[in-house]
């Protein structure tokens, strides 16, 4: 089942590559069908996921490289637990959304959709892999489509941004590989479940070094201060669909990695580093929020708000308790939907206005009420209004981290205030104000693909906000064993 989820998008990618040149506009239909099918699979997986069964489910495994072949073994193993199941669902959903918002891509359409689908497979591999090497393989694989998409279909300084993204991520993952190699060589296995059950306690180098080597890759990806500077550039210059994927699922690879790998595999070292992590988290939240306030470019503003919001994930993690970790896991899901939606809306606005300068916009609500309304919904969800998904996640995070890190939590709560500031201010500047003549000709988003993209995300945001148990049951089941490990160390 999960292998199917992994293979569907890449099959679509290959098919779309082999389309004849003159039919390349059909690539979007291929992309829609295959990402839709993958989404259906992810829904089925999430629905059939049984939170009361411990361990990984839907496990699919075979010996990739047998021990007898080369003196070591690498397994292909995929499986989900409560931590990854929601992320898989999120990936399925956002992939469909990103195909929809790319509906008007004309330039080199078949390559574009092929890369987009290929990226879905790569990210899916990261969330599903239960073997460190397989995890690393997919982690690296995801760079390729991302680089190509930004550098070829982006805007502005696209090559610069794509390269910056690549260098940051590669630098991080290089150290991650070193860390994995040490763990694998010490324990004699790369199986995440085995390494979790029997954490390595002694290696040729201090394990603190290993922990930070691995953490670096995740912190870059998350991203957190001071390694966040690739994110605004990548977002600003990426095409809309790529921004949606980047904010929606790619950043989650960082948080997922921390919770799945860094914490349970090196619990003692993680525990020792919790103060540093909390400080980074608190500072990221504030720093991201303050910088967001100063942005004049709409897309850059949403990008920086991501830095701030992903700080909550790290804050929840740094509490190292079940509540904090659940909050972090939920924040990942909700941030994916909310920021994904924000980028969709910003992309729709940009398609019509051809500018992202906030100062040039005014009274857009009069011209495009649908887009405006969705923008407001996404904004409110982003600042954590009760009844929307963001509130549930942030609340859980704060409750979890308050005891462990009161100062960082206070910073985080103040970050919410700031985020209310920049969201409301932006809404006021862009949507309200006098309806100027310049934007008289703007049309609202009424095409089926635009409406579907927005409506599906709004639906998820509201559903989780109103009935959080949809998400929390699975998340708590997934977090419980990890929290148990973390609470066991002192």
């Amino acid at each position, binding site marked *: 089942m999960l292998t199917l989820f992994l293979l569907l998008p890449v099959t679509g990618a290959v098919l779309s590559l082999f389309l004849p040149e003159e039919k390349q506009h059909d690539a979007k239909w291929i992309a829609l069908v295959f990402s839709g099918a993958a989404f259906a699979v992810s829904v089925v997986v999430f629905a059939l996921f049984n939170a009361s069964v411990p361990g990984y489910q839907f496990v699919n495994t075979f010996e*990739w*490289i*047998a021990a007898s*072949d*080369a*003196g*070591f073994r*690498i397994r292909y193993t995929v499986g989900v637990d409560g931590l990854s199941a929601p992320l898989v669902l999120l990936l399925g959903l956002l992939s469909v959304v990103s195909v929809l918002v790319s509906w008007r891509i004309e330039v080199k359409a078949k390559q574009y959709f092929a890369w987009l689908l290929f990226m879905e497979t790569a990210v899916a591999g990261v969330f599903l892999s239960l073997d460190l*090497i397989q995890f*690393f*393989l*997919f982690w*690296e*694989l995801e*760079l*390729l489509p991302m*680089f*190509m998409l930004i*550098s*070829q279909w982006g805007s502005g300084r696209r*090559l610069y941004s794509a*390269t910056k993204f*690549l*260098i940051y991520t*590669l*630098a991080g993952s*290089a*150290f991650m*590989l*070193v860390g994995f*190699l*040490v763990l*694998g*060589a010490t324990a004699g296995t790369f199986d995440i479940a085995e390494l979790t059950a029997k954490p390595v306690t002694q290696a*040729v*180098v*201090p394990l603190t*070094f290993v922990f930070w080597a691995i953490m670096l890759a995740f912190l870059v990806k998350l991203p957190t201060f001071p390694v966040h500077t690739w994110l605004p550039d990548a977002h600003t210059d990426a095409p809309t669909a790529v921004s949606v994927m980047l904010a929606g699922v790619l950043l989650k690879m960082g948080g997922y990695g921390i919770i799945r790998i860094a914490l349970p595999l090196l619990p003692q070292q993680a525990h020792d580093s919790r103060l540093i992590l909390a400080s980074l988290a608190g500072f990221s939240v504030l720093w991201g929020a303050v910088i967001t306030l100063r942005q004049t470019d709409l897309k850059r503003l949403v990008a920086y708000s991501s830095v701030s919001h992903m700080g909550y994930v790290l804050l929840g993690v740094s509490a190292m308790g079940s509540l904090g970790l659940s909050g972090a896991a939920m924040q990942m899901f909700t941030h994916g939907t909310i920021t994904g939606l924000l980028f969709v809306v910003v992309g729709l606005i940009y398609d019509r206005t051809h500018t992202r300068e906030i100062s040039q916009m005014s009274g857009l609500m009069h011209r495009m009420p649908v887009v405006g309304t969705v923008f407001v919904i996404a904004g409110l969800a982003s600042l954590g209004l009760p009844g929307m998904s963001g509130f549930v996640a942030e609340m859980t995070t704060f409750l979890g981290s308050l005891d462990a890190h009161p100062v960082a939590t206070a910073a985080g709560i103040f970050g919410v205030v700031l985020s209310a500031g920049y969201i409301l201010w932006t809404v006021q500047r862009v949507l309200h104000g006098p309806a100027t003549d310049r934007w008289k000709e703007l049309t609202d988003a009424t095409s089926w693909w635009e409406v579907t993209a927005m409506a599906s995300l709004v639906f998820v945001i509201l559903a989780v906000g109103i009935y959080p148990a949809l998400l929390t049951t699975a998340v708590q089941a997934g977090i419980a064993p990890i929290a148990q490990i973390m609470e066991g160390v002192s």
Partner: protein
Amino acid sequence: MTDFLGNHLNLNVGLLLPEIILAVGSVLVVFLDMFWEKAGRGSAPLVTFLTLIAAGVASASDIDAVDDFARMVSIDNFTTFFRFMFIGVGIMLVIGGWEYVDKHVNHPAEFYALLLLSTVGAIFMASARDLLIAYLGIEVLSFSLYIAVSLGKNDNRAGEAGLKYVLLGGVASAMLLYGLSLLYGVAGSTQYGDIAGALQGDLTGLHMPLILGLTLIVSGLGFKVSAVPFHMWAPDAYEGAPMPVTAYLSATSKGATLALFLRWFGGPLLPAIGDWQWMMAVIATLTMVFGNLIALQQHNVKRLLAYSSIAQGGFMLMAVTTVSDISASALLVHLGGYVITNLALFLAIIQFYNRTGKEEITDFAGLSRTNPYLAVVITAGLFSLAGMPLLAGFFTKFILFQAVVQGGFLWLVVVAVVGSTVSLFYYLQVIRQMYIYEPVGDASRWTISGSGYIATGVLLAAIVFVGIQGAPLYTVADRAAFALFDGAPVAAAAGHAAPAAPAAAPKAGGH
């Protein structure tokens, strides 16, 4: 039959059949060219091709053999591994490079004769079990290449390349020979087995000549494998040589030298590991660091690949540093992946050159428009060298790194991983040109010849196959390495490597 010392000599000439076939083929190619004009231009590549195939078939009978010829040459899986590798390289070069050779090489027949002859030398480097035979193998390979490098037609750089290569190569050979004579003085024998025994024994008063000899040997071999700081000849030779020769330099010549490294440092010199291990670690580090850094500034694609192959050599020297059956197997795996990848790249660039006559990186602008197939091959090759997943380079590099970590040299792996990250940046320069920039001038599509499709297609498939399901390569590499370490040396390696490991650990912690 026995020699005058009473050692039993096995003079079964059949064991050397592949080499004999290659040598005869080489002579045949030259004679055909000289005395039979009717044969035409196509005869040399055809005869070469058939000779290589015949040698390959003859090698197949020696799979799993454990034998030696006159105590001079070992016929084991290690030898067989390299026989197949070098013969395969030759076959690919003939298929993918004959058009280039026809157009851009003086005396094509000589090129083919030298190709065959140097392959004989390369095989002897891998199979020798006596210092003299190994040295003869080196010289057969080197002399063939000195000529081959300067065969370029209408290219002023060919002369410079040839001269530089022959002068520096001569110095290196002299150093190597001096080192070997010192080693002979210490050990009292040129037989690998006897040397290992002698070095395990009492070395009182002989330590100084041993160190001196080792230094000279490492330097001499360092030249041949183009390790920093002995790499100066490589970029010029790579740039000036005809492209198939460049490909040959980066594949067979490098592979044969690494085979020799493994034979020597995993066998006769293993007992002296404490004396040479640090040299190897230093050279590997320098090679990785400078190879990758200098590659960043290149604008000629051949020079870029020259530095990239220098850096790749550094990765492989790491495995020599921690020599053991595991790391030898890992080295062979990586070497296999590297040879496949590099050949694919060079053959694709040869096809590109056949059409355009250009070799600057900027000349590749818009290749994805004008010839998407070649663009894919080159991209796959470059990404594989950088170690991207699903391509050969990912697992081979990973296996190599893992083996070095297990050998206790984590800090080397840290350098390698960082170097590998840097390498992706310069590989991307080429990929960027192909995919992001528009073609300059003529933007119409063009195609390559059928033989070009076959050669690049086979290698591209091999890159992807090894990247996804590399088990066959790992298995044969493992068996080859097992042949190398069959018996006592493995235990000796463990005994000697163990004191080195804790010494390396604190250093690694500091990084």
